[in-house]
C-alpha cells in the first residue's frame, strides 16, 4: 500500500510538473494585419527581423520607403524642398548626399536609381496615401503611425505630391505650394515649395517575392 502511494504520488508530481512545463511559452512574433517588412533586396522579412528598407502596405497595395538614421539617402533627418523638375523650388532642403542642397526630385531620382527593394516607380505619395498610414499610438509624443514599421518619423511636415495648392495667410505671398502632412498632430497644411520638409516615398510596384507569393489581397 505504501509503495503504491509512493509510486502514484511521484507520478502525479511528475505529470503535474510536465503539464506546467508545457504551459510555459516563449515570446513569439506575429504579423501585422496590414504591414510587412521588406529587405533592401526585395525579400520579405519576419516581423522581428531587420534591418528592413521598405514596408509593404498590404491593404493599399503600396510599398513605402523606410527612413533610417544611417546617413544614407534614406536618413529620416534629411529635409527637402518640393520640386518635380518643372514646378517647385529646387535645392532648398538639407541633406548630406548632394553637393548642393536637396529637393524631393533628388530623393526620387536617387531611390529609383538605387532600385530600393528591387523595384522602381518611387514617387511622392498623395496626401490621401500619407493620411492612410494613420494608426493610433497612445505613447506620449509619438507619431500616429505604426512606428514599429515606420521608424524615424519626425515631428514635422511630410511632403505629398498634391501641388499647385493656393497658399493662404502667412504664406500667401508665395502664391502656390504643395500639401504636407504631420504624423504627430495629424494635420494637413499647404506649404510653399521652398519650405524644407521631410519625405517618405512610395511606389505601386511591388517586389516579385510578394506578388509571386500572392500575398497581396488586391
Amino acid at each position, binding site marked *: 500500500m505504501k509503495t503504491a502511494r509512493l509510486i502514484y504520488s511521484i507520478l502525479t508530481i511528475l505529470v503535474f510538473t510536465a503539464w*506546467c512545463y508545457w*504551459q510555459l511559452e516563449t515570446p513569439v*512574433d506575429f504579423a501585422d494585419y496590414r504591414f510587412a517588412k521588406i529587405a533592401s533586396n526585395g525579400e520579405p522579412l519576419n516581423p522581428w527581423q531587420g534591418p528592413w528598407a521598405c514596408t509593404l502596405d498590404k491593404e493599399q497595395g503600396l510599398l513605402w520607403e523606410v527612413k533610417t538614421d544611417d546617413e544614407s539617402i534614406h536618413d529620416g533627418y534629411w529635409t527637402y524642398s518640393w520640386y518635380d523638375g518643372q514646378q517647385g523650388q529646387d535645392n532648398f532642403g538639407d541633406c548630406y548626399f548632394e553637393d548642393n542642397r536637396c529637393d524631393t526630385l533628388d530623393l526620387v531620382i536617387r531611390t529609383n536609381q538605387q532600385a530600393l527593394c528591387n523595384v522602381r516607380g518611387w514617387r511622392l505619395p498623395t496626401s490621401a496615401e500619407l493620411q492612410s498610414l494613420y494608426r493610433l499610438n497612445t505613447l506620449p509624443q509619438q507619431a500616429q503611425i*505604426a512606428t514599429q514599421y515606420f521608424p524615424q518619423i519626425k515631428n514635422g511636415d511630410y511632403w505629398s505630391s498634391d501641388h499647385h495648392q493656393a497658399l493662404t495667410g502667412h504664406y500667401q505671398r508665395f502664391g502656390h505650394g504643395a500639401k504636407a502632412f504631420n504624423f504627430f498632430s495629424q494635420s494637413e497644411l499647404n506649404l510653399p515649395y521652398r519650405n524644407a520638409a521631410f519625405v517618405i516615398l512610395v511606389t505601386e510596384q511591388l517586389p516579385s517575392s510578394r506578388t509571386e507569393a500572392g500575398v497581396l489581397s488586391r
Partner: protein
Amino acid sequence: MKFARCCFVAIHLVATAALLISLFTGLRIRAVLDDFWRNYSYLLPQGEVISIHLLSGMLLSLAAFCYLIYTRLKQQDKKRTTTRLKHKYHHLVIRLGHWVLITAIISGWLIWLQAPVINKLASILHYLMALAVIAYLFSHSYFHFIDSGVGGLKRVFVPGKGLKPLFFIIVFSLPALAWLSHAFIAQNQYQTLLVDDLNPDTHIDIDGIANEGIWQQAHQISVLTHGGANFDNGQTRIWAQAVQNEQEIYFALRWQDANESLSHLPLKKTEQGWKVKQQGFHHFDETEHYEDKFAVMLSNSCDYGADGTAHLGHQPLKDKPVNWHQKGYHASLDNQVRDLWHWKAVRTNGMLLADDNFIGKPISHKPGVRRYTAGYQADGKESGAYVMNWLWYKPDIIVPKRLPQDNNKLALFNQNALLPWFESTPYHKTTDRYPVGTELPSVLYRSNRFEGDRANVRAKGIWKDGYWHLELARKLDTGSQKDVVIDSGVCIWFSAFDRSQVAHTRHVRAIQLVFAS
C-alpha cells in the same frame, strides 16, 4: 482533549496554507535574481506576489504565535495528554521544522525592518530557511502521507466531531486578523526622508559633488537594497538627502559600487565582422557588458511591491506577452502614473540628465516589437537622443553606424564608452581598416540632449573610491501628466544597477518624503 485537538488541527491547517503560500511566492521573488528558480518558473505563482508574500508571512507569524500558546497550554496539561509521536524520526523532524520556521519568520521580519547591520545576514538566512522548508515538507508532510495515506492527512487537517464551530472560528479569524494587521502595518510602514528647506537664493550645482553647505546640514537616511546583479551578495546601501526651495527638489544620493562600469555593450571586431559584446542582452537581461544605472520611482501611494507595480513571472499580466527573461514587468494596473527617473552612467550622464520615464498601464503588444515593456515607458520628447552604434542588433554580426575618424583617439573613446558624433564618420566596409580585436563604444549622442518632457530631471553622477555620487534636481510640478507632483507625503523607491540592464536592487518599504515646512 477534543478542544486541544481542534485547536491543533485549525492552527496546523492555517500554518500549512500560510507556509505553502509564503514558500511559493518567496521562490518567485527569489527567481528574479536566481537563474536556478527561473528554471522552475512554470511551477511558481505570478503577478503581484510581493504583497501576498508579506500577507502570508503575517499569517504564518500569527499561526506560529498561536501554536506557541497552544504548546504552552498543552505542556500544562501534559499529564492528561495521551498523544505521542509514533516515531522518533517524526519527533526530530518536527523539532527541526519548528526551528526552521521560527528562523524563517524572524529573518523575514528583519528583512522587512531593513535592520541596518543584520540585514545582509537575514536575507541569506531567509533563503536558506526556504530551502530547509522544502526539505521539511518532504521529510515531514510527504513522509506522513506515504506512511499514513489520506487518512493520516485527515487526522491533521480535519477536526473531530463536535467542535467544528471552534475550528472554523480559528481558521477564518486568523487570516482575518493577519489581513487587518497587514493593512495596519502597511499604512504605517514607511521610512521617512525629511526634505529640508533650501533658501531660493542658494544655488546647487548638479555636478555629482554634494559640496554645497546645505548638504552638510540636510537630514540623511540610508536604506539597504538587495536583489541586484553583481553587487556584493546582491546588496548595496543607498544614502539619500533631499532639499527643496518651493520650486525644485534636489537629491544627493550615494551608493556602494566597487567598480565604475561604463562599458556598455561595446562592439568588438572579429574575423567575420563587428559583434556586440553581450551575455544576456539578446534576452534583455544583460549583466556583464552594461553601464551602471540608478532609478528613483515616485508615487502618490506607498504600497509594497514598488507600489503594486512589480508583477513577477514569465507572463504575469493576463493577455500580455511572455517576457524574455521570465522576471516580470512593471505596470500600474490602477491606471495611476508612477514617475520613474532612470539615470544611466553613459547614455544620460553626458547629457547631465536622468531619463524621465513613467510606469503607466500596460500598453498593447504590437507586432514587430520584440521587447514588450508593459507599463514602463519613456516620457515624450521634442528632440535629442542617444543611439546605439549598430544598424540593426543581431546576436552574431552587426554593421556599425559610425567609426572613429582618428584611430589614435579610440582608447579615449573606449574609456568614456562614448563615440562623439563629430569625431566619427559613417561606416563603410571599404574604409574599415580596424584590426580584428578592436573594441569600439556602442553609444552615440546623435544630436542634442533630450528636450521636452523626457528632460525634466537634471542629473550628474560621479564615481569615486567605491561609491557613486549622484545629484538630481527636478521641478516640484513639471505640469506633465507623466510626472508625479512632488509634495510632502509622496513616496519614493531607490534601485541601483551594477552593470546590469534590469537586475536592480530593491527595498521592501517605501520612503516617504516629509517636507520640513
